[in-house]
């Protein structure tokens, strides 16, 4: 007991040290980064990304340290640089970065020496070619067959008043502290990438690129930039800004290991510039959703010129020029209290299809309100325009349908059925830890979890039970598989098979050697304590003692990533992707070393000398040769049909292995808004997961005055239905 406590302390201290070393805070996660902790946001907690634990982050951190160390130790790296090139290193000429006289290609004429040097050192990844070399048989696409999703009724103007739970610790979007809740206003819901995936269909629509084409190899995408595309400081977006993006993202100065890895050499193989507005990006694998994956954002080279050790401090409170419509100006920042974003009056995409009639408010006022309950009161007062009502107590008790503000037609409550992969709320059983290494026990455990009661009583039947490990991926999700249902008899039958047959004096099952059937359930979600309390009380009926271990989130996820848990209750945000990921959570390479099939003996049984691998997403410690084989094939596969089939087989195999008790999913988004906020007829696109995301609403300032005066006189307003349900995208099960 003493030892484990010591270990906990030790790991905590280590984590804190790492944290302090890098200046504190978590990392960025703009792109598709699985993220424990944040899924809490789906219950309309303020997205408290800042403080959330991040095993992925820690993992990346460790990796970066290792990389840096290796570099330092073996610093025999040949640093020939530009001079080396000038001295006649012929092997470098064919990349087209430099001409015969040692001058940079005209497209790179503006680059600083250190940036050029970086390109030269990585010339396999950076190439300058000419338009003649563009393949002639490209099939260009421009998304013109897709439909716009904004409303023709929308009007520009007005102020949108919203809140965030913490004052941002920086206005950078990359680097320590940058992935706070506020980043969505700077980056995620603001900035425009090369090509955007359409939220109502499986297609794409133009972003900075007005057209794009997938090359013959299936791994390269060609983009032609829109001639109007500009940054918010008025400078045009150049093709070389995408070169610079890789320079930026791979730099150690940004202190963003996750980005360093995501944009690493092994994934983004090469960027080729053809002219000022044409480029190609080569990815490491031909995936069905390739276009989306390589649609990166440009980094304004004219703004940074190059990066140095002062990146973090220099840009701490300066927003980099963005391709999006909203900017933070100095006068808009009231430290500790609020930030106001101003709409560019002449945004380059103002009249483009898919962008017109979106981003309507002239200003976004983001107040800092730390307590969500207080924010709710501010909303009821009319000082916030919208508020998330996903939590049951907000929807039913705090703002019931007959609440005067709703009944009098000032406020509207909206339920919008969306279709997005849900955050994976589930119990993940660590199959490497006795007694849970016994399949019978694990199946019994599944049947002892009364999620039905949780859904009925805590979530009042508003949520649906998650069925498989990969719900919400359209055809890739298993069509029929169901989660195991609560049943005391079935659970006890399986527990009996595992040797737990008699009940002790406290009603908990005991096996022949006198061990109690007691399992520890770890989590970092304090706000979901009720759910666990219900599970615990119900599990007693099946003779299972569930010990709750609700820790502060950093400590909890750290314990889990060290694989010290028996069962962990957590959720990962899944991203709107075409097909689910299996390798990270279920491949044996993420459970044990050595890699590959060496960890199994001839009968496919795990060798006793394997070493548990920590800091991976395989929280179930799944190591099954058959599942490995399926995942390997799944990862290699490039055809969507095969991928679909394999995804189904994998879902079944993992179900049979019984390491994952699916929790619940929320098939909708619920929010409340004052009626001066107007929405399109369908309310929003299908893939909306946050009402702030696609910005198709508009603010009617006249309506605001009208409603406010009606409110002060107590007069009811007609023509507002108060409660609305949008069921267009409701899944039929």
């Amino acid at each position: 007991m003493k030892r484990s406590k010591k270990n906990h302390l030790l790991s905590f201290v280590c984590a804190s040290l790492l944290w302090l070393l890098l200046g504190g805070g978590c990392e960025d996660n703009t792109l598709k980064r699985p993220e424990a902790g944040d899924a809490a946001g789906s219950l309309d907690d303020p997205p408290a990304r800042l403080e959330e634990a991040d095993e992925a982050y820690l993992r990346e951190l460790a990796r970066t340290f290792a990389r840096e160390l290796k570099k330092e130790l073996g610093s025999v790296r040949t640093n020939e640089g530009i001079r080396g090139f000038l001295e006649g290193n012929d092997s470098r000429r064919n990349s087209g970065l430099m001409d015969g006289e040692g001058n940079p290609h005209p497209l790179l004429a503006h680059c600083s020496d250190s940036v050029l040097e970086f390109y030269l050192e990585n010339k396999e990844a950076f190439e300058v070619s000419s338009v003649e070399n563009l393949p002639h048989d490209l099939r260009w696409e421009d998304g013109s067959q897709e439909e716009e999703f904004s409303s023709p009724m929308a009007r520009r103007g007005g102020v949108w008043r919203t809140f965030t739970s913490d004052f941002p610790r920086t206005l950078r979007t990359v680097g320590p502290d940058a992935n706070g809740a506020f980043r969505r206003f700077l980056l995620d819901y603001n900035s425009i990438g090369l090509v955007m995936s359409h939220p109502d269909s499986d297609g794409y629509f133009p972003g900075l690129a007005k057209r794009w084409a997938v090359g013959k190899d299936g791994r390269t995408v060609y983009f032609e930039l829109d001639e109007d595309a500009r940054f918010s400081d008025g400078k045009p977006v150049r093709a070389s800004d995408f070169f610079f993006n890789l320079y930026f993202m791979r730099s150690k100065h940004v202190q963003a290991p996750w980005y360093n890895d995501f944009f690493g050499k092994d994934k983004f193989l090469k960027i080729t510039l053809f002219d000022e507005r044409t480029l190609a990006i080569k990815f490491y694998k031909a995936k069905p959703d390739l276009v989306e994956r390589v649609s990166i954002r440009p980094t304004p080279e004219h703004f940074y010129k190059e990066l140095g050790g002062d990146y973090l401090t220099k840009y701490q409170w300066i927003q980099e020029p963005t391709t999006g419509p909203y900017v933070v100006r100095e006068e808009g920042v009231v430290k500790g209290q609020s930030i106001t974003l101003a709409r560019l009056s002449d945004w380059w995409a103002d009249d483009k299809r898919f962008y017109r009639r979106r981003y309507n408010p002239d200003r976004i006022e983001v107040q800092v309100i730390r307590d969500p309950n207080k924010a709710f009161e501010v909303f009821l007062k009319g000082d916030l325009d919208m508020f998330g009502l996903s939590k049951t107590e907000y929807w039913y008790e705090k703002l019931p349908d007959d609440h005067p503000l709703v009944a009098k037609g000032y406020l509207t409550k909206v339920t919008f059925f969306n279709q997005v992969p849900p955050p994976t709320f589930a119990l993940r059983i660590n199959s490497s830890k006795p007694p849970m290494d016994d399949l019978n026990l694990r199946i019994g455990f599944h049947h002892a979890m009364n999620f039905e009661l949780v859904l009925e009583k805590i979530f009042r039947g508003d949520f649906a039970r998650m069925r498989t490990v990969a719900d919400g991926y359209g055809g890739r999700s298993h069509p029929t598989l169901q989660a195991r249902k609560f049943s005391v008899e079935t659970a006890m039958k399986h527990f009996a098979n595992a040797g737990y047959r008699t009940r002790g004096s406290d009603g908990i099952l005991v096996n022949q050697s006198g061990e109690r059937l007691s399992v520890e359930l770890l989590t970092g979600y304090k706000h979901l304590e009720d759910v666990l309390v219900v599970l615990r009380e119900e599990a007693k009926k099946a003779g299972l003692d569930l010990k709750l271990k609700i820790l502060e989130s950093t400590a909890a996820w750290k314990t889990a990533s060290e694989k010290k848990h028996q069962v962990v209750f957590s959720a990962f945000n899944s991203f709107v992707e075409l097909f689910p990921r299996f390798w990270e959570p279920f491949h044996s390479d993420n459970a044990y070393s050595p890699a590959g099939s060496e960890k199994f003996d001839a009968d496919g049984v795990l060798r006793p000398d394997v070493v548990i691998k920590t800091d991976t997403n395989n929280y179930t410690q799944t190591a099954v040769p058959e599942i490995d084989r399926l995942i390997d094939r799944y990862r290699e596969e490039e055809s969507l049909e095969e991928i679909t089939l394999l995804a189904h087989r994998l879902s079944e195999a993992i179900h049979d292995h019984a390491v994952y008790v699916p929790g619940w999913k929320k098939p909708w988004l619920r929010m409340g808004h004052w009626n001066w906020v107007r929405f399109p007829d369908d309310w929003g696109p299908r893939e909306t997961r946050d009402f702030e995301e696609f910005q198709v609403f508009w603010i009617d300032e006249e309506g605001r005055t009208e409603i406010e005066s009606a409110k002060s006189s107590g007069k009811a307003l007609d023509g507002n239905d108060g409660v609305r349900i949008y069921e267009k995208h409701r899944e039929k099960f």
Partner: protein
Amino acid sequence: MKKFAFNPLTRRKLQRFRSLRRGYWSFLLLLAGFALSLFAELLVNKRALIVRYEGTYHFPTYGAQIPGDRFGLGYEYETNYRELKELFRKENSNNWVLLPLVPYDPYEMDYREETATGFSPPSLKNRHFLGTDKTERDVLARLVYGFRIAFAFALGYLLLTYLIAVVVGSVLGYFGGKTDMMGLRLVEIWSNVPFLYMVIILVSVMPGWWGLGWQVSSLLLIMVLFSWTGMTYYVRAAVYKEKARDYVAAARVIGAGSARIVFRHLLPNVLSTLVTFAPFTVAAAVSSITALDFLGYGLPAPTPSWGELLKQGVDNLRIAPWIVASASAALVVSLTLVTFVGEAVREAFDPKKFSTYQ
């Protein structure tokens, strides 16, 4: 051995304390409350007091859990005695069940009614006298068990902090000189460790598989560890003062050793200082454990606790006012009683009986 008797001074102090009605009655009330709460299982419990089934009597309150099969209910898990009572009533047989006054335990969710989804208002019919909380647990049951835990905690806290403070304080005060110089600096350094942060940090990494008892005691130890310093100064000063008196010199002259002087002569005289502080320390301990629970760093879920109830109440002020009302009333009443006791003790131990401040 000599028959135990208080010395006349102490007896006078006790008499004086008894004569201060408000403090004395508060003390009795608190004592009775705490004594009752030690047997809370007989008053507030989901297990029945007595079950008469087929001619035999069962007393399920203490001891092993009785499976439903025993009463022909057809399940192996613990009998639901409220349902059993209903059943017997309907059957109209000789079997009967005697339930405690509040037939709920603090952990159990009462989802009997179709519409029960949390926050049921107080109801005599369902015997939820103070309503239910978010997961339909009985508020009164949680208050009662929360009281027991909070006060047991406070008493443990009192004993431990005073123990450390007395030991360290008397060592510093009695030996004085360099010991005092160095020791006091160490105490000062230690007292500058931010108490709340340390508790929050340590509690967050505390392993949860230790049973409730272990968790409560480790929380207690952590709190004691960072808060014994305050009392040390008083003990040290009192020892300093006392050791310069003639009776100490006399004892030394007739050859008494350090231990004897400290334990037989100094401590009894120093204790009166401590006793006057004790009730306030209890109040402080109860409020700190409540505050920690309120912040979510106190006792592990789902332990019944006042802080947790207060938190729920504040979060749901509009929809479930009975939670915050009961919890804050309980807190105010008990802390006021403790403070009354404290005032009375202070007055009783005050050598200036007719103080000009009266």
